[in-house]
């Protein structure tokens, strides 16, 4: 099902949840 | 999810239209309409329609190649093969740029302005930001924030594009890793809970023993 695959693809691209430099500082 | 649902209706509509068409020129016109439609960003269902195979070997075969490009390719890919592909209308150029942003967002969540300007053939930051806001964020295919200080676009969400055969294994691997990490983390949390419970019991026992000895000492005094 192409539609489901696209949704899963979009989900997978969301990982990791945050990646910005600013977030890394705060996370640390 | 909403974008995908909207697309599902459009895909069904175009598929039904394609099934009813018999001639190559009509199918080529349908491909043009689909690749220009402002709300359609998925083309693999159309690509796999038997009706579209009628375009192969005709003077409209390049329309099939164009559809394939819109399913999997980017603006850069079009520019490298523009001599073999039909000329694009402004709506198609805009869509290809939007799809290019989705492709870029697949590999990294922080997209530098310079890279975006190069990939999207945009000459200045103002134009790039207007495009990202109006054509990508406001159309719902991407969510994110522009960081003018660091000159980058931080992607929070990007709609999924059609998958190429090689991408499926990567996806399965990522999901397996995610599952493994989540399982591992849950296991660690369980262990911590057990440790906390056990330590709490030991502390309670120790406290009781101490209180009993204090009582004993008081009595003997």
């Amino acid at each position: 099902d192409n539609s489901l695959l696209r949704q899963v693809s979009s989900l997978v691209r969301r990982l990791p949840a945050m990646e910005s430099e600013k977030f890394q500082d705060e996370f640390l | 999810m909403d974008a995908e649902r909207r697309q599902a209706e459009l895909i069904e509509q175009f598929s039904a239209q394609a099934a009813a068409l018999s001639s190559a020129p009509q199918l080529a016109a349908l491909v043009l309409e689909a690749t220009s439609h402002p709300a359609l960003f998925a083309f693999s269902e159309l690509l796999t329609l038997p009706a579209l195979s009628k375009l192969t070997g005709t003077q409209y075969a390049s329309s099939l190649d164009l559809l394939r490009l819109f399913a999997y390719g980017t603006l850069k890919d079009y520019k490298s093969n523009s001599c073999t592909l039909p000329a694009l209308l402004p709506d198609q150029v805009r869509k290809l740029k939007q799809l290019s942003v989705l492709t870029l967002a697949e590999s990294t969540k922080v997209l530098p302005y310079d890279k975006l300007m190069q990939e999207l053939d945009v000459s200045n930051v103002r134009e790039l930001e207007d495009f990202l806001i109006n054509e990508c964020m406001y159309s719902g295919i991407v969510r994110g924030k522009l960081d003018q200080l660091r000159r980058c676009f931080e992607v929070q969400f990007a709609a999924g594009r059609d998958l190429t055969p090689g991408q499926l294994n990567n996806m399965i691997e990522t999901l397996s890793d995610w599952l493994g990490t989540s399982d591992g983390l849950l296991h660690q949390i369980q262990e911590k809970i057990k440790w906390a419970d056990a330590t709490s019991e030991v502390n309670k026992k120790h406290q009781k023993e101490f209180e009993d000895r204090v009582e004993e000492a008081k009595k003997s005094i």
Partner: protein
Amino acid sequence: EEQVVVIREKLAELYESEQQWSKAAQMLSGIDLDSGIRMLDDTNKLSKCVQIARLYLEDDDAVNAEAFINKASFLVTNSNQEVLNLQYRVCYARILDLKRKFLEAAVRYYGISQIEQRQIGDEEIDENALEQALSAAVTCTILAGAGPQRSRVLATLYKDERCSKLKIYPILQKVYLERILRKPEIDAFAEELKPHQKALLPDKSTVLDRAMIEHNLLSATRSTYFCSFDELGTLLGIDPRKAEKIASRMICEDRMRGSIDQVEAVIHFEDDSEGLQQWDQQIAGLCQAVNDILDSMSSKGI
């Protein structure tokens, strides 16, 4: 006194027929409603107050209209005259609108638009009138100061199916979704406004200008972390120093989150805890996405 009252009422009728609304109102306002000689019941007093207020409102005289509506507000709670009560509500909403208390006016207009009866007393309630009330509610909400209270009213209006049929629905949608409004859209909206809604404020900008600038400023915070005053000025179509002033006022009034660095001439549209909060939101979004996929799968029998 009785004869004077009759003369006043007749003269008021004549003025009304010649569309000299304020003169008609002045004629009626000379009638002593609390006279010891003529005993008027509350319904008659209410009727007179509302009539005078309506006449003043025909000439957009909010000050005088308000004086009589305030008198009427003591009487309306005990009134069971539905027509009068409705007229009172409409006057009150229009007065708030004229006084530029747009959010309060919007809430009242919206309440009026939700009337279910199509006949109140001898009066028929026209669908067009209800649609006008709804449209007035939307217009006033858009003109109101941007902030959390306005967001709540916007959400109510946006989710009301009737609004999707209004001519100004596209702008309502953009305002609700916090999208930047461009000049052609703002100009099109301006054509639907009444004169007092385009009035000049002490700082030489118009009511509409201020509302649009504040809205666009808030919209910018949704898509950017950070903006220079020059960029902001270009985006809002105003002088950069004015942009800074408006932004600082909104931050002080707690209607926008951010900080201003006057040395670097930039505005940061966030505070320091934004990263971790955003992380939480991202995780929630991820979980929702997983749920959506599972729902899709089960709906397809997978």
